């Protein structure tokens, strides 16, 4: 079977909702049925066939040509692999449970990996705000799985994150790990207000910009779990293991909230 490939005929005229293009919703559909799926978000009711050239027949291996207007890629994904050649929009991998989403460009819309409980998202470029963060009104952001970003990410990364790991090889914007209740964010540099209002969870970075005074220094440690984490990160994201420090400074906080989280810097 050949990879099920969706090639954009032209830049889409509007934002597209691609939540239908996942393994469990394409299984059993023939080429005509796939082309008839409505993905447009205006009253034009644009279909897959209007916008994409479709080839291949394996819904467990989906390839998409990317664009920043493609929303909900891999939403609720339960298995299989989605490869995006180019950029992606809002809600990439939202609430995914298993499988792999790989983006060769950047994610231009917020909330990538929000409410995901398993699987892996790999972003080769940058990502916008609230990667692994909660959408408005949601109790949790990322709740499992792994997100890796080779570039930089915007503000509110891991806002209300609950579980799982977010690895950013570049810089993270304002309020990373805000209101976090669990999980791990590993980055080169954290921006201002890191961990604002976090209850539990772990933030790890080489440097942190202007850490809030509600994070209390607790000393310098050689923590055994960092060795295990470094080995695991290196196996998942080759080269990123070096982001895990060996003899870091540890801060506890946010004392404004429960205060059982930690920021590890070194």
């Amino acid at each position: 079977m050949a990879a099920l490939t969706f090639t954009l005929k032209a830049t889409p005229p509007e934002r597209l909702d691609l939540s239908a293009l996942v393994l469990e919703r394409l299984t059993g559909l023939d080429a005509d049925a796939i082309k008839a799926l409505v993905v447009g978000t205006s009253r034009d009711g644009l279909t897959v066939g209007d916008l994409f050239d479709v080839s291949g027949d394996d819904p467990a291996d989906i390839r998409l040509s990317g664009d920043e207007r493609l929303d909900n890629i891999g939403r609720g994904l339960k298995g299989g692999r989605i490869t995006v050649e180019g950029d992606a929009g809002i809600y990439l991998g939202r609430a995914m449970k298993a499988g792999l989403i790989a983006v060769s460009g950047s994610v231009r819309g917020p909330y990538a990996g929000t409410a995901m409980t398993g699987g892996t998202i790999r972003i080769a470029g940058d990502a916008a705000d609230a990667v692994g963060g909660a959408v408005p009104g949601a109790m949790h952001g990322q709740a499992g799985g792994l997100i890796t970003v080779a570039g930089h990410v915007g503000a509110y990364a891991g806002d209300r994150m609950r579980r799982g790991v977010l690895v950013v090889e570049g810089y993270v914007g304002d309020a990373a790990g805000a209101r976090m209740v669990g999980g791990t964010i590993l980055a080169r540099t954290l921006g201002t207000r890191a961990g604002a209002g976090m209850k539990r969870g772990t933030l790890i970075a080489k440097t942190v910009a202007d850490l809030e005074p509600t994070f209390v220094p607790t000393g310098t440690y050689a923590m055994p779990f960092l060795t295990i984490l470094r080995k695991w990160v290196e196996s998942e994201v080759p080269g990123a293991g070096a982001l895990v420090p060996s003899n870091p400074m540890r801060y506890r906080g946010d004392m404004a909230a429960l205060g059982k989280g930690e920021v590890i810097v070194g």
Partner: protein
Amino acid sequence: MRGEALSVLSGHPETGADPAIGRAAALLGGARRPVIAGLGCDVDGVRAALRLAAALGASVDHAARAHGRSELRVLADSGVMTTTVAEARHRSDLIVLAGPGAVAWADHAKAFADAGGLYSWRGERGVLCLATGGARPAHVATGTPVAALGDGMSLHRVLSLLRARVGQKPVAPLPGNGPALAAIDAVALQMKSAAFGVMIVDANDADHVTLDALQALVKDLNKETRFTTLGVPAHHHGRGAHLVSAWTTGGHLPVGLGRGYPEQDDWVHDAERRVTAGEADALLWIGALGPDLPAWAAGVPTVALIHHGATANTADVVIEVGVPGVTHGGVLMDAVRDGFAAVDAKAPQPLPSVAAVIAGIEAALIGGNP
């Protein structure tokens, strides 16, 4: 329908609106992805705008972005404690002005210009300024000197430090140029000692994380005393517009109707983002109560409904409308009474309302070629 709707306007030929309505209907009816924004108008105007949006498949947004994106987000995220201006004025023995916007509003609205004497058992009113950048209220009656904390700090940091100290948790050593720990503890004690404190904040001074911290501080204080908050009313009838959207579509603004059913999404349907990203092909700007047409509207074909004296240089069709409560009556959110109120015209003029103009556009769509 067409005759009826236009007859509303035909009594006012001096506005010259009728041919303009035809051009507006042609511009909007030919669009595939229109945006309705600004939305500074009365309840009837917002209802008409949502009805037109359903017919056009448009996105609808209001200019008071901070109210929808931050204040209503925290309401949905964590819940809020809130009160009315009248309760705050009469019952509160500690008014906390959090951020410079709160000071500006307290002075402008003069809601606390007198001590509020409904309850003899209430003690003297105290006033506390948090992270106001040196601003102090000039028109707030107080029985004690105005206290302040964190003039040189961000509101987020001041609230976080107070949350930590109210909860008797440690904080890191503070830099020499900031407040001393004793000063933070004194303010924490002042807040705990209040019988009924009210924290006033302008959503424009804070994002959702900071507003969430403010609400969490209030919840913490309620373990020992009574404390609540009061949001500075959103400008250009923002609260009213969001409420109309909530009871009409089930969600606050912005909301999109492109797929024939309402979809609430703060990012996707944000009017400014949609226009600047080239995702909109027409804009209906409603500014009966303001604001002026923004610069970002220059890039898209625009119909502007504006009040007398406003300018909309980049608009293709400009229709002058009346102002509810000034040139004609209308229903508006009353921020002081915290409810909708019918207001009469102060200076009646034969100008059409937003609702009448939109009804005319809608009728022209049906009669014409949508």
